[in-house]
């Protein structure tokens, strides 16, 4: 996700503040012998606060292993740690494009699924059990629209509608930069490709569809916070951005709504940094946090879908309604195909790298 491009001053302050508020936990004198610590690099803010509450604290209480948080988990930062031989992070919480880049650069440890609890893994879709990343929080690219411009029911209900500037007047906003792959799938969906027949992507067809939406785009946003601001304030009317973030904005009172139809689901994952010193503790941590019940607790606090379908046993209908992995929403969407984006072509680049680079060139050249 673009999150990494967008560490605003405010997020930084929130991150620092959450570190400080987490301070007391580091200073508690353990009753037992020191079981060591692990460092989880994540995105900070309310997300880390929630994770500390429902994951880190109970894990510390159960195992005696301290959990420190740090971040943001950028590929470049991991590379610096590896290059300098001073690896301070154990676990990352990040998205697939970053994981593919890091794995290709030899910065990540393969996940040994045999060391994880089979009963807890079973309710997690196979597509989320990647060799370098285990999906845990699900985001996705969805249609987020301003409800003052479009009354719900008369809003764009498919990507074809988003591409239709005649029937749905108003400015669009799409992501660009910050390592995000271009949204080629939604371009293909708009062009009539069925969401279950998406992969392998017809790249040329997708770029032609991108050419068509380009005149409708008011702003190519650089981070999702910016995207939500634009659509909330009515600077744009339809935004292709992270659906769960739209839900957060809506709950804070912004005039926005999320259409899940045709959405592209993608996981934020747990990934293991190669060369970490405390590998046993890492697997203990992973076993703890993939539990459906733990995931359900997190989903009550932040509206990202839990990866374990088991989590929905612990959520009531109201709590599950707006989660993107709730069965009724899951049915309308498709999974981002990690294998396709990560496949290395004859040029030595992954599809993700090649298309991200092409995105920048397309943007600079075609204008």
């Amino acid at each position: 996700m673009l999150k990494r491009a967008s560490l605003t001053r405010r997020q930084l302050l929130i991150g620092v503040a959450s570190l400080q508020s987490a301070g007391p936990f580091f200073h508690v004198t353990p009753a037992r012998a020191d079981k060591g610590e692990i460092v989880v690099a994540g995105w900070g803010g309310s997300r880390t606060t929630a994770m500390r509450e429902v994951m880190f604290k109970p894990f510390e209480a159960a195992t005696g292993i301290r959990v420190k948080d740090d971040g943001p988990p950028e590929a470049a930062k991991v590379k610096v740690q590896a290059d300098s031989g001073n690896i301070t992070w154990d676990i990352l919480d990040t998205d697939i494009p970053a994981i593919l880049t890091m794995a290709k650069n030899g910065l990540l440890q393969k996940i040994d699924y045999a060391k994880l609890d089979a009963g807890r893994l079973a309710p997690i879709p196979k597509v989320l059990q990647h060799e370098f990343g285990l999906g845990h929080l699900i985001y996705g690219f969805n249609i987020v629209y301003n409800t003052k411009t479009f009354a719900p029911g008369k809003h764009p209900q498919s990507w074809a509608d988003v591409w239709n500037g005649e029937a749905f007047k108003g400015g669009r906003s799409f992501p660009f930069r910050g390592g995000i792959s271009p949204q080629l799938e939604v371009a293909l969906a708009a062009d009539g490709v069925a969401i279950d027949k998406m992969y392998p992507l017809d790249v040329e067809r997708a770029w032609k569809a991108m050419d068509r939406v380009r005149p409708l785009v008011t702003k190519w946003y650089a981070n999702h916070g910016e995207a939500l601001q634009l659509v909330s304030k009515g600077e744009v009317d339809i935004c292709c951005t992270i659906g769960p973030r739209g839900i957060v904005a809506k709950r804070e009172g912004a005039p926005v709504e999320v259409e899940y139809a045709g959405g592209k689901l993608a996981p934020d994952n747990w990934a293991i940094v190669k060369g970490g010193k405390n590998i046993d503790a890492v697997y203990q941590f992973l076993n703890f946090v993939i539990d459906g019940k733990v995931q359900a607790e997190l989903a009550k606090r932040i509206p990202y879908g839990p990866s374990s379908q088991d989590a929905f046993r612990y959520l009531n209908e109201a709590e599950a309604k707006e989660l993107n992995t709730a069965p009724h929403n899951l049915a309308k969407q498709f999974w981002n195909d990690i294998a396709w984006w990560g496949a290395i072509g004859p040029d030595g680049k992954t599809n993700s790298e090649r298309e991200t680079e092409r995105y920048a060139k397309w943007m600079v050249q075609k204008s």
Partner: protein
Amino acid sequence: MAILQRHRGKPRAWRARPSLLLVGAMTFAAAVYVIPMLTLMSWAFRDPKTGFTLAQAIKLVHEPAYITAFVTTFRTAAITTLMCALLGYPLAYLMATAGNRARLVLAAAVMIPFWTSVLARSLAWVILLGKRGLVNEWLLASGLISVPLPLLFNSIGVQIGMTHVLLPFMVLPIWSVLMRLDPALPRAARSLGATPARTFLEVSLPLSLPGLLAGCTLVFILAVGFYITPALLGGDRDITIAGLIEMVVRDLLDWPFGAMLSLILLAIVGAVFALGARLVGAERLTGAEQRP
């Protein structure tokens, strides 16, 4: 000092010390600047097998997108410099000629934004220039326009934002030159019968040109590396080379190519600085100038 030296009878020891004091600063500069720069260069030109390679430079030549971004960057920087000069000179002139109280107000008007974060100032323009922003609301209410003007997410927004952010770098050097101008010179011109306009054009303006050139050099150099403001206020025609370098380094992890792009940008900035230094003297550009 000379008296002191003779008095103590140890002139050499006194003279040696200033260079000793420099050791700390030089070590610091070497550690945080020279060594990283050399590393950057080695990334751009080193090949793990053959030792030396021009592959990154060749790659750049074959990527018109990056060239386009360089052109955009320089076009934007040039327009910003021109706008800053047109707005900054009168402001500096006013500051230099106004009374003490007015000068204080003007100086505060220049300096307070100068101390505010670039991010905050750029975001403020998003609020002001938006479709439903203050400027468009006023214009719509006054009946001057019937549909909102596209002031944001295009080159207009970028130029407004960058000119605002960089204006102090133009005003301050011009002001400092104007303040040191001998007031007797324009007075002499007037007493010899020159009109105020002619006095300005033939006396004050030529004498203050070094300040203007210093300001232009500073603004241009800073504008070339600008990143946040074009990203926030610009559209798809305003993608600067700094933005692409960020993508190459951070997302594609192609550090050799990123190093090459950075070095080219650095070389161009160096060339502009050298030109400015040639015209007005390096002291004025670095602020190391002695007071007369």
